[in-house]
């Protein structure tokens, strides 16, 4: 059997999905995280509960949701509450096992910025904002980060979501729940984890076809590399088929997605009503 061909997004989704265990409660956003959640539920974690901060709890999307409040892609869900309910009665009570977040900027201790590049007032770029990230990142048992287009920086321009702060036990001292915090970052070339003591990020594995050097070149400090560096498995045929069935846009990645959908958009926009 020929090796299955896969996209950059698909290997991230397939590996990130494995971070979800059966029975986990998973807070999830649109895009790669949602694809990972749905893949996990369709494969090894049928009893995980997927929820979004919009108050949609126990959703089972049959299509890739456009955003976290999009219930048009489920046939019902088990509990309809609101955003305060999600944060206070679920997140703040320590019930979230896994949260997935995309990375804008991240520093060596997992502090994240999704608000602004450059000076806060004299900014270079405004990102989408903190959204639900600070509290998910703060209070979930495990935060899984995905990074496509995000950047490693010595110091984030704005701390939207505190990770391990200055490292070591700074996070616990600041009062976050013991054991919480970022656990893993899936980039396009490899996977990163955090040192159990110093909480400094290190390269834990590479995706097939990539090298440690490539990855180190993207990190502005001397990145630690695991001695027992793992080579991450490519996605299986079943996995890529499931991802493409549910979320071809995610499979294609943002750039190709645009490229592929623009002809249709232009076609409609240039059409005139009969």
């Amino acid at each position, binding site marked *: 059997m020929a090796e299955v061909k896969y996209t950059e997004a698909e290997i991230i989704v397939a590996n990130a999905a494995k971070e979800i265990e059966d029975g986990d409660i998973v807070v999830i956003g649109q895009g790669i995280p949602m694809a990972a959640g749905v893949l996990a539920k369709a494969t090894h974690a049928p*009893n995980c*509960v997927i929820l979004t901060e919009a108050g949609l709890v126990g959703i089972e999307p049959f299509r890739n949701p456009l955003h976290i409040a999009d219930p048009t892609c489920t046939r*019902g*869900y088990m*509990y309809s509450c609101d955003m305060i309910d999600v944060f206070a009665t679920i997140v703040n009570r320590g019930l979230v096992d896994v949260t997935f977040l995309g990375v804008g900027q991240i520093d060596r201790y997992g502090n994240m910025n999704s608000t602004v590049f450059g000076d806060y007032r004299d900014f270079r770029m405004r990102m989408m904002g903190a959204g639900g990230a600070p509290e998910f990142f703060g209070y979930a048992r495990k935060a899984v980060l995905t990074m496509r287009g995000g950047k490693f920086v010595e110091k984030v321009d704005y701390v939207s979501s505190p990770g391990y702060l200055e490292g070591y036990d700074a996070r616990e001292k600041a009062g976050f729940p013991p054991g919480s915090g970022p656990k893993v970052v899936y980039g396009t070339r490899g996977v990163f984890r955090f040192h159990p003591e110093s909480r400094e990020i290190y390269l834990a594995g590479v995706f097939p076809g990539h090298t440690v050097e490539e990855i180190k070149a993207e990190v502005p400090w001397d990145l630690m590399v695991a001695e027992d560096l793992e080579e991450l498995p490519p996605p299986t045929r079943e996995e890529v088929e499931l991802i493409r069935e549910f979320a*071809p846009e995610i499979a294609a990645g943002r750039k190709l997605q645009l490229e592929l959908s623009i002809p*249709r958009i232009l076609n409609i926009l240039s059409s005139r009503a009969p």
Partner: protein
Amino acid sequence: MLTKYMQEDKRMSAKEAVERFVSDGDSVVIANCLYGTPYALIHEIIRQGRKGLTVFQQGGIDEIDQLLLGGCVSRLLMAYNFRVAGERIETVLERALRRGEVEVEDYSNYTLLAMLQAGAMGYPFLPVMSGIRESDVYRVETFCAGQKFGEVECPFTGEKVVVVRGRNPDVAILHVQRADKSGNAQLWGALINSKWACLASSRIIVSCEQIVDRDTIMRSPHLTIVPSFRVCAVVEEPWGAHPSELLGFYDYDMIFRSLFFMQAMSEEGGKAWMDEWVYGVADRREYLQHYADRFGLRYLQELRAKPYPSIPADYGASGRRAWDENDMSFNFQLTRDEFLRALEEKGGFVNG
């Protein structure tokens, strides 16, 4: 940290649920107030002889009296307990208080529930309406002394705000119209304290009139008052709230309640009632059988609800999948094969 309950099937008998999830000395909240009271579970707790419970009681009719007659309760945080008779008749609660069997801490309805809301939200405290400060509800304390109310200064307005402490009972018992076997519980009608009482608690035992399939829940998620992962046991118990009422099922049974009130006016009468209706039956089925034997089923039938369904919410969407029946993508206007070819051609595959 809270325990999640992820088993897909949590159905069990009331007996098993109480055996496994209610212990001597627990704090317990009755998560229906006046309406839909979980009598089947309450009677099972009494039958199993639980002792030393601390009970959060929003507004009771006779359930606290029954728990007291069962010797289950040592502390009551209470806002309201119905009293049927005048001063000359000593109530069950008065007898228990005079004997020192139980202590009461008085709250108002709102301040009691605010403690549970705070607990449910994971907050150490919540503000309440500060007027309570001028009442003896605030000033007179018993076993909550020092922890009953507090005061903080608002950092924005400088005003002194009364706050209550977040509370997390060990167990909530709730009766609802329907639930699925994994515990998604749906309640409608008077919602009073149900959400906050349940979500505050570590363990939630749900009894329901009907176990329904998962699809019924998924199609009406707005009715779910507690999601499955918080629920540790689901007990199917028709008439589980009798003699209180439950929309869609039955009205309250005033006659039967009167029987309790009349008997409970004397110590022996109360005991006789308990012997007959709690200890004398093994479970709710026997209770109903005994009711039928004693009065005839027709008195229960008279309480039966006539259907009056709500106007549905339409949860419909286009229902469009990523690929339609011709294997065509709506967003790309490509077939699956064309899509894969495009990925190939445009260098989308990293191992291509």
